[in-house]
Structures are given as structure tokens and as C-alpha cells.
């Protein structure tokens, strides 16, 4: 048998593969060769073969047949074999017990080997993959190596001990004696890993924490040496001496100093020094500064400050700088650095600056006052920056909310609609957000933007607030009356601006459909403001009053919850044409902008609808197709009452019957007629089409009950494999009732050779626009698939004809964000629609 090819030849061969299939074939061929070599118990080339296997494993090919070969390599006398064997064991071995037992013996032998590198390999492997049994068996050897004078082994033993403690916490005591001398070590690797070990022990046991508090002076000394030592080529990273060790020590200090006066005091001094001496022009410095700031905030620095009164002048200055002001400056400095330069570290430092800025802002309001101007600078581009650096939506919302809480008066006006849009889009955060906002404005209406966002959210999600169904926060008990109390006090507070009052009144109005037992109270409030001295407010109130009295049947539809906008703009607030509290000049000629869908004008039509016919749409001067701006407009619409415009065209009720070709707003198709009585049936729709699975809905109206719609679903499969265990589930809003009949089969045959049919009956007593959420589960190509989808494109035919006006109102309230998302939409359709909506409004509100 010829010698097997080398790893590098294998790599070279694989790289010549043009296709995935070709690569797979090469690998299979090589695997066969390796297997036969393994069978022949070839000792010479075993390590070469395992090395090749590891490479294939990295590329995602199965390599577990090499597991036993790894064990044989470990048992070999040669370092080369052991090196590959241990690596292979770490990469390939699973939790199999028998293999672990074999390994335990090998590792035990190697831990006592005469060569430090063999010992190192054994430690490394144990510290990576040691099971709890292995850890129990070998903890003694690890402890022995932790006390050795060989720093190469000692640092590995320390990390191995961490692994042992994680696996078997009760073995912690065993390592306690060995920790005594760890910090006396000069070698930074050992120091670093020792600090990791100490941190692990402190976090696991309060006893250990108390025990290790006595190490604070030693840690302080190490830290001091690091910052005072000057340049050492060994540990220098961008001009800073071993930042990794510094960060680790600062973290340990934080744990040790938390809730402990003495240790906090012992570290105050050094923290001030680190904070003042660290060069922050590079990422490395920021890493340290960030940890320092966090540590300062976590420990009891204030008590330290008080007792420092008797210290020397120099000390005092140092300690004074520890004050939160310093953190403020640090944060804003980091902010500046971050915004000025675009390099990697500085972007990261923006993230850090924001985090620490916000932590500080929470702690001390006075500091915020003193550094107002710096903060304001930081806030200038707050939204864009935060959006770019936000690791999650929750963080994003929290962050902007916290900024609004403390420095709300200084943010740009568009922060309000932006935040509202963000909240709207984070469905899972609604309950959480409304609760946070409710708490934030309790008794404090000084931050107007915050109050506006809060009012909007309370109006929108008041039901969630009252039901107290928030998982993330301590749930609060709020009654409907209490919520209304808040909103009413916003209305009467003399801190509230006209805009804020508008938000509050609209919120109260919206609550009339979300609250159950306080509708009369809401009616009363609304009617009181019908005679408000504020004209805008008065107009709103009068309109809402009319909604209660004349159009009560439309109220729930009009005030329905805002839909989620599926796309979020990636651009900054500059995209928002109209901002809160400002009024765009409204051109008199409402010429449609040249191209693209026009969400904004849609929104303004809506506004028409709510505002009566003496307000006309504001056509934005900058045409935009971003759904975000649509969001902004929509939000404005329900909150902002300062829109003005020229009078609308005279009402032309006669033209209504002529409306024959409005677009299907819901699916963006303008070809299908909306009001075509000649059409015999209701057009079918494609409700879902993804991964080869297509689901079509066909509709029939029940003969016995016109409120019942019979929907037949047909699922087909265009892929080359059958979909089995197919289950279709559907849910509709509460105002509907749904009956799902059993399906014709549970297998969707491949290549569109057949369909599953299933009948759904929907009862729609309130004649609302139907929306449906569907859940699909099936097995395809051996894996279980699951998908959720929302079907919004039901034809409006599903409602009764007499409700057409309402239908118009409704569809224009609900769907426009979806329309806005359509990349290609017929512009003519929109124009048409605008005209229609105007006419409908003039009729409806005549």
C-alpha cells in the first residue's frame, strides 16, 4: 500500500474542486483511504491521517470514525502523536462514557509526564472537555500542578481548576490552599489565569468572597505596578501594559468591593489613578476605562470619598475626580473620540460610552445637570448612532427611553415619532415598554417628549398596561381609572404643551376601545374638551365626540391598534419629513410626487379622515418611499395636531358610485375590482408561498348566513420531495369566530401533483376586515419545518356592501404600511385612492 498523501496535498486537491459535489467526491475517496489505513493499524501514518480528518471535520464532513484513532495517538510515546491525538480528542470526541474512561488514564499519566509540553497538552484537554467524572478523578493532579514553580504549567493548571470547579463545584475547597501564593507570581500569564480562578470562586461562593477580600491590597498593588511600570515590550498592547490583566483585575475588584466598605475604600485610590492615567486614544485604553467606570459605579465609592477628607491634597484631588462627574467626562470623552474617528476601536467605544453614560445618568441627576452641554452634544445624533450600535431592540428602546427620562427636553423633535415607531415595531416589547413609560411619567411631566411617547403608548397599549401581563418587569397593578387619572393630569398640567395635550387626548380616546368599564368617563372628558380654549384641542375633542355619537359603529375600527411595519429604515431621522411639533409648509397644489409609493400622502388622507374637511393633506416636499416616514406620519397623525393646510375640494357625494377601480390596498394589486357587483365570486388569493409550499384561499359566502365566509385552502408543493405531517392552523382577531374543518390529507405531494384541501368557516358579526395568522408545520427532507405568517390580503368583498364607507375608512387606516412596503406599486392607483378617500370622507362626515 502506498503512503497516504500529506495534509497539504489533500488541501491542495480539495481547493481545486470546482463544485461542492466534486469536493464531496474527493473527500469521500480520501476518507475511504483513511479508513483502510486505520484498519491496517498503520502506526506510522496515523497522525497524518487524523490531521487530514480534522481538516475535513472543519469543512463539515463526518469524522467520528477517527475518535478511537485519537485515543491511540494519545497513548503513543511520541509528542507529535500526542499533540494531534489530544487536538483530535478535543474536536471530535463526544460525551461517550467508555472513551472518557480510557482518556482519564492517559491524561493521568501525561499529567505526570517528564516533558512540560505533554503535561500542558493533558491539562489543556482536561480543561476543555473533562467530564465531571474525569474532573473528580484528576482534580488532585491539577491541584498539584497549580503549586508547581513552572509558570507554563501553572497557568494551565489554574484554568483547568476553573473548569473542574464549573463541573464539580464541591471540589472548590480543594484548590483553596493553592490559591494562597498565586498572586505573588511574577509571570503575567499565571497572574491572569489566577485572577480568573479567584473570580470564579468568588462568584460561586459567598464564603470564598469573604475570604478573598483580604487579597484586595495585593490586587491593588499589581494594578498599580501595571500602570506605573512604564513600557515593557513583553506585555505592551498599543502602549498599555497588559490591558487584559488590568481588565481582569478590575472585574475581580468589582466583585470584591460590592457591598463592602473596607475593600471599596482600599481600591478607591487606585481606581482614580487608573481612570486618570489611562490613555484613551486607543481601544485598549477604552477597555480599561470602561471596566474602571463600571467598577467605580458598582462599589461603594461614596463612603470612601467621605472618609478621604483627611487625606493629602493630592489624594483629595484624585478622589474627588472619582466623583460621578469624572465618569460623565469620561463617557463624553469617549463619545467624542468615537464620533470623531471611524476606526474600529472608536466605534466600539461609542457603544461603551453610551452604556456607561446611561448608567451614570441613572445614578446622579446633579452630575447630569452640571454636564448638560456635553450630554446635549452627545445627544445630537443620538438616534442614528444608537440605532447603528444597538445590540438589540430592547437595549435600543431602553436607551432612548432613559435619555428621554433625564434629558428629554434637549433631544431633537423627531425622537418622539422615531421612538414610537420603534416601539410599534417591537411587538414583543409592547407590554414592557408601556409599563416602563407609565412608571417614568408618574408624577413628573417635565420631560415633554417622554410624556408624549408615554401618552401615545398608553393610548395604544393601555389594555396591556391594565392587564399587567409583563414578563420582564415586576408587574404593576394599575386600574383603568388610574391610567385615565394620569392622562387627565397631563391634560391639565401647566407644564404640558399643546402638542402633549393633543397626544394625551388622543390617547384617552383610543382607550375607549381598549378599556371596558370607563367608557362613560372617557366620553365625559372628551366632551369637556369640546369647549377647550385651545383651538386644536377643541377641534380634536369635537371630532372625537362626533365619533362617539354619530359614528360609534366605526369607532373600534378607526381606533384599532397600529399595525406593525415590517421594515425599519436604516437611515437616520433626516428621512422623516415631518417632525413633531413642526409644520411643513403645505403647498397648495397637491401635485403627486413623481415616483414611488406615497405613504406620507396616505397618512395625510387618513388625517383628513379624522380631522374633517377643513384640513388637507400635507404633501411632503421631499418624496420618500421609506416606510419609516410613513410610520412617522401615521404617528403624527394620531398625536400631532398642528397640521395645517388649504381647504379640501368641495364634497361630491354623487361621484361615489362611480368609483369602480380602486386598488386592492391590501395586496397592492390594482387590477382587481373592488366594487364590481357583476363579479360572480370573490377572487381567490395566495396566502402563503415559501420554500415551494403554496397555499391558496378561495372564498364563498355561506348561503344560510351572510356573515359566514367559507374559505377553502389548497396547499400545493412544488419541490421534489413530499411534505409529510402537514398541519395548518389559523387564528383570527377576537371579533371573528373561526371553525377549522379537518384536512383532506396530511401529505402534500411533490411536484404539484396534488393538493391538500381544508375548509375554514369564518363568522364575521362585526363586518370587519378579515385578518388571519397562520401556522404551518410539516416535515420536509427529513427536517421539521415550522412557519408563521400573517394573511392580510383578504379581499374586502368578505364584508357586507352596506359597510363600504367603513371599509374604506378601515382599509385606509390599517393597510398603508403594508402598501408602503410594496416596492412596485401602481401610482395611479394611489392617486385614485386619494380622491376616493376624500370623497368618502366628505360623505361620511357630512
Amino acid at each position: 500500500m502506498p503512503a497516504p498523501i500529506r495534509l497539504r496535498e489533500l488541501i491542495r486537491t480539495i481547493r481545486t474542486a470546482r463544485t461542492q459535489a466534486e469536493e464531496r467526491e474527493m473527500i469521500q475517496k480520501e476518507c475511504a483511504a483513511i479508513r483502510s489505513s486505520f484498519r491496517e493499524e498503520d502506526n506510522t501514518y496515523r497522525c497524518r491521517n487524523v490531521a487530514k480528518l480534522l481538516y475535513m471535520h472543519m469543512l463539515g464532513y463526518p469524522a467520528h470514525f477517527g475518535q478511537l484513532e485519537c485515543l491511540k495517538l494519545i497513548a503513543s510515546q511520541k509528542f507529535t502523536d500526542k499533540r494531534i491525538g489530544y487536538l483530535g480528542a478535543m474536536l471530535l470526541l463526544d460525551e461517550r462514557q467508555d472513551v472518557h474512561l480510557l482518556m482519564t488514564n492517559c491524561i493521568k499519566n501525561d499529567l505526570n509526564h517528564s516533558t512540560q509540553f505533554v503535561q500542558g497538552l493533558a491539562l489543556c484537554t482536561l480543561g476543555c472537555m473533562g467530564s465531571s467524572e474525569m474532573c473528580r478523578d484528576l482534580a488532585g493532579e491539577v491541584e498539584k500542578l497549580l503549586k508547581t514553580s513552572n509558570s507554563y504549567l501553572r497557568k494551565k493548571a489554574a484554568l483547568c481548576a476553573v473548569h473542574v470547579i464549573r463541573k464539580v463545584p464541591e471540589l472548590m475547597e480543594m484548590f483553596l490552599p493553592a490559591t494562597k501564593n498565586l498572586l505573588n507570581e511574577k509571570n503575567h500569564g499565571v497572574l491572569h489565569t489566577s485572577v480568573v480562578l479567584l473570580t470564579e470562586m468568588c462568584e460561586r461562593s459567598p464564603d470564598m468572597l469573604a475570604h478573598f477580600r483580604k487579597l484586595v491590597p495585593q490586587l491593588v498593588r499589581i494594578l498599580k505596578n501595571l500602570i506605573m511600570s512604564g513600557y515593557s515590550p513583553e506585555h505592551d498592547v498599543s502602549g498599555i501594559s497588559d490591558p487584559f490583566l488590568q481588565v481582569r483585575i478590575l472585574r475581580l475588584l468589582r466583585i470584591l468591593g460590592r457591598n463592602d466598605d473596607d475593600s471599596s475604600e482600599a481600591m478607591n485610590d487606585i481606581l482614580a489613578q487608573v481612570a486618570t492615567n489611562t490613555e484613551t486614544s486607543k481601544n485598549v485604553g477604552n477597555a480599561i476605562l470602561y471596566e474602571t467606570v463600571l467598577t467605580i459605579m458598582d462599589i461603594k465609592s461614596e463612603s470612601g470619598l467621605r472618609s478621604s477628607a483627611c487625606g493629602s491634597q493630592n489624594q483629595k484631588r484624585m478622589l474627588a475626580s472619582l466623583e460621578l462627574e469624572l465618569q460623565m467626562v469620561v463617557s463624553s470623552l469617549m463619545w467624542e473620540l468615537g464620533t470623531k474617528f471611524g476606526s474600529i476601536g472608536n466605534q466600539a467605544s461609542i457603544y461603551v460610552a453610551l452604556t456607561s453614560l446611561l448608567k451614570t445618568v441613572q445614578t446622579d441627576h446633579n452630575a447630569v445637570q452640571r454636564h448638560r452641554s456635553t450630554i446635549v452634544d452627545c445627544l445630537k445624533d443620538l438616534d442614528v448612532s444608537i440605532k447603528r450600535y444597538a445590540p438589540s431592540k430592547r437595549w435600543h428602546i431602553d436607551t432612548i427611553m432613559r435619555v428621554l427620562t433625564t434629558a428629554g427636553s434637549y433631544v431633537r423633535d423627531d425622537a418622539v415619532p422615531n421612538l414610537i415607531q420603534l416601539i410599534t415595531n417591537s411587538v414583543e416589547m409592547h407590554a414592557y415598554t408601556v409599563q416602563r413609560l407609565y412608571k417614568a411619567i408618574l408624577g413628573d411631566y417635565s420631560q415633554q417628549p417622554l410624556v408624549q411617547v408615554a401618552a401615545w403608548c398608553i393610548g395604544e397599549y393601555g389594555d396591556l398596561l391594565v392587564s399587567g401581563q409583563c414578563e420582564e418587569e415586576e408587574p404593576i397593578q394599575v386600574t383603568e381609572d388610574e391610567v385615565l387619572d394620569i392622562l387627565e393630569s397631563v391634560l391639565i398640567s401647566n407644564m404640558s404643551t399643546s402638542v402633549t395635550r393633543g397626544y394625551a387626548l388622543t390617547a384617552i380616546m383610543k382607550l375607549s376601545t381598549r378599556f371596558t368599564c370607563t367608557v362613560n368617563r372617557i366620553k365625559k372628558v372628551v366632551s369637556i374638551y369640546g369647549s377647550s380654549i385651545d383651538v386644536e384641542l377643541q377641534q380634536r375633542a369635537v371630532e372625537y365626540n362626533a365619533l362617539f355619537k354619530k359614528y360609534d359603529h366605526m369607532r373600534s375600527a378607526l381606533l384599532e391598534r397600529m399595525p406593525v411595519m415590517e421594515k425599519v429604515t436604516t437611515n437616520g431621522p433626516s428621512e422623516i419629513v415631518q417632525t413633531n411639533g413642526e409644520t411643513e409648509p403645505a403647498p397648495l397644489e397637491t401635485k403627486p410626487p413623481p415616483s414611488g409609493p406615497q405613504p406620507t400622502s396616505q397618512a395625510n388622507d387618513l388625517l383628513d379622515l379624522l380631522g374633517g374637511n377643513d384640513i388637507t393633506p400635507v404633501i411632503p416636499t421631499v418624496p420618500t418611499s421609506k416606510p419609516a416616514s410613513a410610520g412617522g406620519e401615521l404617528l403624527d397623525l394620531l398625536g400631532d395636531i398642528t397640521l395645517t393646510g388649504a381647504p379640501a375640494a368641495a364634497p361630491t357625494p354623487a361621484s361615489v358610485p362611480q368609483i369602480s377601480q380602486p386598488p386592492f390596498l391590501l395586496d397592492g394589486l390594482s387590477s382587481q375590482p373592488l366594487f364590481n357587483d357583476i363579479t360572480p365570486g370573490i377572487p381567490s388569493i395566495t396566502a402563503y408561498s415559501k420554500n415551494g409550499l403554496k397555499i391558496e384561499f378561495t372564498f364563498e359566502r355561506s348561503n344560510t348566513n351572510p356573515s359566514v365566509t367559507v374559505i377553502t385552502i389548497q396547499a400545493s408543493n412544488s419541490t421534489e420531495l413530499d411534505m409529510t405531517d402537514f398541519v395548518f392552523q389559523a387564528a383570527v382577531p377576537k371579533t371573528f369566530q373561526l371553525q377549522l374543518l379537518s384536512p383532506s390529507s396530511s401529505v402534500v405531494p411533490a411536484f404539484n401533483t396534488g393538493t391538500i384541501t381544508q375548509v375554514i368557516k369564518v363568522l364575521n358579526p362585526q363586518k370587519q376586515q378579515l385578518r388571519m395568522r397562520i401556522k404551518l408545520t410539516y416535515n420536509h427532507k427529513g427536517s421539521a419545518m415550522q412557519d408563521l405568517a400573517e394573511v392580510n390580503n383578504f379581499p374586502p368583498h368578505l364584508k357586507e356592501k352596506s359597510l363600504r364607507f367603513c371599509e374604506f375608512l378601515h382599509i385606509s387606516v390599517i393597510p398603508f404600511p403594508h402598501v408602503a412596503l410594496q416596492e412596485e406599486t401602481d401610482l395611479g392607483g394611489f392617486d385614485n385612492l386619494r380622491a376616493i378617500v376624500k370623497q368618502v370622507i366628505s360623505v361620511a362626515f357630512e
Partner: protein
Amino acid sequence: MIQAILVFNNHGKPRLVRFYQRFPEEIQQQIVRETFHLVLKRDDNICNFLEGGSLIGGADYKLIYRHYATLYFVFCVDSSESELGILDLIQVFVETLDKCFENVCELDLIFHMDKVCPLLEQGSWKTEFRTCQATCVHYILQEVVMGGMVLETNMNEIVAQIEAQNRLEKSEGGLSAAPARAVSAVKNINLPEIPRNINIGDLNIKVPNLSQFV
């Protein structure tokens, strides 16, 4: 704790995959792919931190990455690690690789075997070193991170230990075993004893100097 260290090229081909938390093989591959797609769509001018993909544990884990020309270095860490610190650690790791493989270009080359091959023919011990490169990167990483925790950040120390181990390996004949042992035997002939500048044409000048080598 570091959960995973992934290195892949701009096309998503894995070049180093190391998990410190046990995942089944197919999940590992999916994580690499998911991570690649998460990282790929990010501009060079935006933050180097992002939330982990759903497979690796989502928001509880952060992906911290750096992009060097053709390679992405991604570390997946939990909250017990300093994000900024990890950013520097990646730099240390890459610089260490760079030192072990002599220069940055070569680092690039390690992963592009086709370009490396001409260099491989030169036959120095470093060549020998490169032949096992797929495992070698692992060995270097092993001296930097152990069991998901940072072990050593002093580059000189790491390089020294790696070189010592490579020498040990070489003394045993290295990966290529018997054939290489013959080569090393030839190389190990005491070189100073052989006159280096023998030039047949200038025999008269060079030969007298030979005595000082003996």
C-alpha cells in the same frame, strides 16, 4: 467565557472552527454559516459587536469580530468577557499567527494553499511547519485560549512555546515521520565544517582560507 472561535474567509469557507461548548457537528456547521451571514452583511464602518445568532444562544452571547482582508475572525462570548478586551485579543491572536508564519501576507497564504505551495518547495523547517498548518493554527490558539478562557496574551511567550514544541516534534521526525527523518539527518550535518564559498574558478583564493573552518 468564549463559546466559539470561528475564522472563515470572505466566501464563508471555514478556516478555523473551535467550539468550547459542545454542539453536534451539523449544528456547528450551521452556526458557522449563520455567523458568516450575520457578519457578512455588516459594513466595515459599523460596530464590531453584535448579538449571536439564534443557534448559539441569541442575545445572551455577543459576536465580536474583526475583518482582515480576506478573513473574518469571530469570537462568540458571553457577558463575563469584556467586549473591548476581546477585540484586542483577536488582534493579539492574529499578530501571533503573523509572527509564527513570519508575515501578514503569509498568514493570508496559510489559508490559501495554492499560493503557499511555491513557498513550500523551499524546504526550510518552517516549510515543515506549514505542512501541518491546519492543525498548527489550532496549536497556536491552544496557547492563547484554553477551555474558553484566555490563557496567555504575551506574544513572545506564545511564540517561544510554539517553537519549542515544534522543535520537539521535529526531533521526533515530525508529521512526515521516516522520510523527513532522513532529510533532517542530512540537514543536521555540522554545517560550519563545510566550506560554503567553494568557487571552482577562484580556487587559488578560496582554498587557503579553508583552514580556519576546520
